[in-house]
């Protein structure tokens, strides 16, 4: 009798166990929709931000297209389409201007003082001249 009792208890304990379904958190898609301005610009490491008129420049991103206002030397000179290499973990941002080949830039995507920044590096002229622009969303 005792044996049956213990067996029932063991069965009850095992029956109480259920597999736990753990949800693996997924990295959200990076959203850059909106208008962005240049808050810092360097050429070959020299800071040009206050020396050149960057303040009017705007790039407007939508789901897959972009437009540019008040052009300055940039990775592309016309509006077109954009894409991340990986929407979850982007390390590269590519631009395909209308009637032009795709141009890609290494991408940094840091949050600085609560504001998301996009940092891109490119050469609009000679490849030996590297420009780094830090873009921030226009509020």
């Amino acid at each position, binding site marked *: 009798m005792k044996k049956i009792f213990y067996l029932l208890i063991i069965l009850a304990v095992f029956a109480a166990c259920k597999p736990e379904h753990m949800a693996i958190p997924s990295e959200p898609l990076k959203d850059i929709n909106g208008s962005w301005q240049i808050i810092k610009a360097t*050429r*070959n490491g*020299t800071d*040009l931000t206050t*020396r*050149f008129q960057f303040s009017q420049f705007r790039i407007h991103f939508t789901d897959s297209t972009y437009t540019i206002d008040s*052009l*300055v*030397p940039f990775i592309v*000179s016309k509006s077109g389409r954009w894409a991340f290499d990986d929407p979850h973990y982007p390390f590269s941002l590519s631009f395909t201007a209308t009637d032009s080949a795709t141009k890609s830039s290494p991408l940094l995507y840091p949050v600085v003082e609560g504001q998301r920044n996009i940092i891109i590096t490119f050469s*609009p*002229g*000679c*490849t*030996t*001249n590297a*420009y780094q622009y830090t873009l921030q969303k226009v509020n």
Partner: protein
Amino acid sequence: MKTTYLSKIRRWLKAHPSYYWKAPGIILLLIIASCSIKIDSVVQPGSVNGGDILPVTLNVTIQTNAAQTSKFMVAVLVPKVWKASQNTTITFTSDITSGDQPMTLIPAGTPAPNGNGLDWPTYLVNKIGNGGNLLNDYEWVAFYSNAAYAVGGNVTVHATVSIKIKTSMDNLMFKLGYCVAESTDGLSDPQYYNSNFPGCFTVNGTGDLIDFCNPQLAVVDPRTSLDNDIITITFDGGVTLTALNNASQVYLCAKGYLTNGDSVTVCTQTTDTQLRSLGLNRWQKDVWPRGYFHLSDNQRLARLAYFFTDASGSVMVGYGGGADPFTYTFKCQ
């Protein structure tokens, strides 16, 4: 000065006779605790023709204080346009080796010993400098010996380094620089490395003279660019007396020559053409040529000819302070 120190030491020893026997030991310790590497002489021509091989010989003396096994490091400061990392061979002979010892370019990004993670070219710029070259278009190119050499303590080694660099066709003046060190201590202390800058060297090449040696009235940075770059034009009125010596405002008057043979001139005295003052009669302007000359998509600039003017536009200063314009050609290396 030395006599004063020696007199002081003598007086001190007289006052402390018990230290007489210790003094030679202290001096010996100081000698043993120092080691050195020195470029005794640099043999290089004053000039070569564009495209020629530049031959350089360094005579180096190394004195050790302790046994060490290290690679030998030789670096040269050269204009970037030479692409010296691809166009240089370095070998050396020494008292402790037999025959020419080959050296190989240190790959980019290789950390220098005791260099806080910096690679050799960056560490050399930070520690040794630019040799007084006035245009920011130079680089240090560093080589290691293929082999590491075991050297005993308190040994003197003489080495003769042979450097051969193929120059470019560019017409230029540059202050070449040389540095020697070893792979264990790097540039961590002046006793472990030595540098030498023999003076201004000339390449008789073709095209506009690129003068790294002498201050220029007008300088364009970057030295090589296209019309879609941002170029920085600096007017240094302190170099020589010009008609703009007392000007309170300075403006750019420029003509852009297009690749199709046309030209565009922007020579009005407005805020768009005004240079900002850097003080001491130096003025500067950052220009995006495509925007400055309002070029259309299919127009390309080949070169610039430019003057600096006062606010009235009547006083114009050109090359050497004269009536001919400064020139700048848009091209990449």
